[in-house]
């Protein structure tokens, strides 16, 4: 089925200009030189972070990338003496809850806006999109008051739902999915309808499989965004056991004072698994950003 033109994952790296200019070599050489220098400034902080995480306290001021006396004691300390493993699990739970929810509801709403005609469609769509104009910072205080005394259940403060709820459906995702779902051919949906497929079945068994690349991009962004989210989790959590990774890292680093080796170990632990995921999926993420212009 070659019905949907989604060149997100097909496209190669940017089209090369093979310049026939005689000075082309010099320009390419200069580019490599400057890019390498800039690239070093990009990677050195990460290397320094990892290197310091293996240093004993006595060595943290020494200007050496290879620790003289490498140790795993920092890792042992951070993993056993702090709540970092718990923060990991919390971040994972929150990111998974909101990503699954976003993947489902954003695609469903996008599908409805793309494929159904109904009274009020325009106004509902405008209401959804208009929420993009309001910075979330404006909603922090109302959300907090609503969470302290919500209409459903008791206080949402220090709960997973409390951390996740602002992001379980996103207007940007609905807009993105609508664009993609418009590419699903109506003939295909009508044919399935005649064959007795239910309306939900049309979405679930036809529209979703045809939009998987877009849903994938949406999931990756949403996961990264939630994983790194800071301001709302900071406000809504007060107990250490409920903190997410960034909030916990901030808390822990503030306490650690001059023990840079421990702070760098906490930072390494919070950064490295994600960096590995990003390097593995880098092509999808980069193409996805180029396509959607979404910010993580």
């Amino acid at each position, binding site marked *: 089925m070659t019905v949907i033109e989604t060149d997100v994952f097909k496209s190669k790296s940017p089209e090369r200009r093979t310049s026939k200019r005689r000075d082309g070599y010099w320009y390419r050489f200069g580019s490599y030189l400057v890019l390498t220098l800039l690239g070093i400034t990009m990677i050195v902080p990460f290397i320094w972070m990892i290197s310091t995480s293996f240093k004993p306290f006595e060595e943290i001021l020494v200007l050496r990338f290879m620790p003289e006396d490498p140790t795993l004691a920092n890792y042992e300390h951070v993993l056993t003496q702090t709540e970092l493993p718990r923060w990991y699990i919390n971040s994972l739970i929150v990111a998974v809850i909101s990503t699954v929810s976003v993947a489902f509801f954003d695609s469903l709403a996008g599908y409805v806006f793309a494929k*159904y005609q109904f009274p009020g469609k325009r106004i509902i769509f405008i209401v959804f999109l208009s929420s993009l104009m309001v910075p979330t910072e404006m909603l*922090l205080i109302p959300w*907090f008051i609503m969470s302290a005394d919500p209409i459903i259940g008791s206080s949402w403060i220090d709960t997973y739902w409390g951390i996740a709820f602002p992001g379980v459906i996103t207007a940007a995702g609905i807009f993105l999915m609508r664009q993609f779902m418009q590419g699903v051919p109506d003939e295909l949906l009508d044919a399935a309808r005649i064959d007795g497929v239910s309306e939900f079945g049309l979405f679930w068994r036809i529209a979703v499989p045809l939009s998987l690349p877009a849903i994938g991009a949406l999931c990756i962004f949403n996961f990264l965004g939630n994983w790194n989210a800071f*301001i709302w989790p900071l406000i809504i959590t007060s107990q250490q056991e409920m903190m997410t990774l960034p909030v916990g890292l901030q808390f822990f680093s503030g306490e650690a004072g001059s023990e840079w080796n421990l702070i760098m170990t906490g930072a390494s632990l919070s950064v490295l698994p994600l960096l590995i995921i990003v390097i593995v999926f880098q092509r999808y993420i980069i193409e996805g950003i180029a396509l959607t*212009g979404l910010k993580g």
Partner: protein
Amino acid sequence: MFKLTLAKKKIIWAYIFLAIPIIFFMYIRIYPTFFAFQMSLYDWDPLAEEQEYLGFENYEELGEELGKERSATRRAFENTAKYIAVGMPLQLVLSLGIALMLNEIRFMSNVYRVLFFLPFVTSTIAISWVFRILFERQGFINTMLEAFSLPTQPFLRSPDQALWSITAVVVWQGLGFAVIIFLAGLKQIPRTYYEAAEIDGASRWQSFRFITFPLLNPSIVYLVVLQSIAFLRMFAPVYAMSQQGSGGPLNSTTTVVLRVVREAFDSNSMGYASTLTVALFVIILVITIVQLRLTTRRID
């Protein structure tokens, strides 16, 4: 049993499918927006029994604070303006340069792209703490300066340097995003334009000035707006890179959003904090409207 026509059945299903998203947007997005406006008219204290209605007193207070040279609110708006005025152009120029160079090279270009991209997807808090330590009095950067017998700098500990140090970190972290947007924009420019220009004897600079730059205009406008708004909403880097998240030293790095959080959750003056968020909202709205004006104008 009613026999519904297909069209009617589809309408009903559309509403069923949209029910939860509609409830979500009404309750989690629209209602809190109005709630924030409402709170800005009250002396909202979460600990008080009843909330006192103030009318526009919070707005008057905001006006007064902005008039006072040394007030935290005034510093927050001034600092935010500095972050945008320096950070945004710096980020754009650097990322455009990097994108142009990345466009030039072939071998290992993917490796370089990932390199610039890594900080962008990394947690801001982790990065901020790494730099906070790199910037320390005896940290990596000062040790390097010493090694080249240059004078060491106080960086985050000095009221004169802290803001620029934080700007540098934010620019560093956000480069990758802007580079990718520019690379996507460069990809849209047909190669034949450059070939034609080359045949006509245009220099590299002329090709850039008269082909690349005008055709990249949409990407530039998009990034100017997006990055300005990102700087306006800045919070996490300042919170992590100043002592106890104070926005110090001496309020020299504090931002509007940091003031909002401090006023609302440390001083319990949620009414005044809401007034600050309304101001933020208005500024962002103006920027967005200007952007829409600029981008809907036809560019040929």
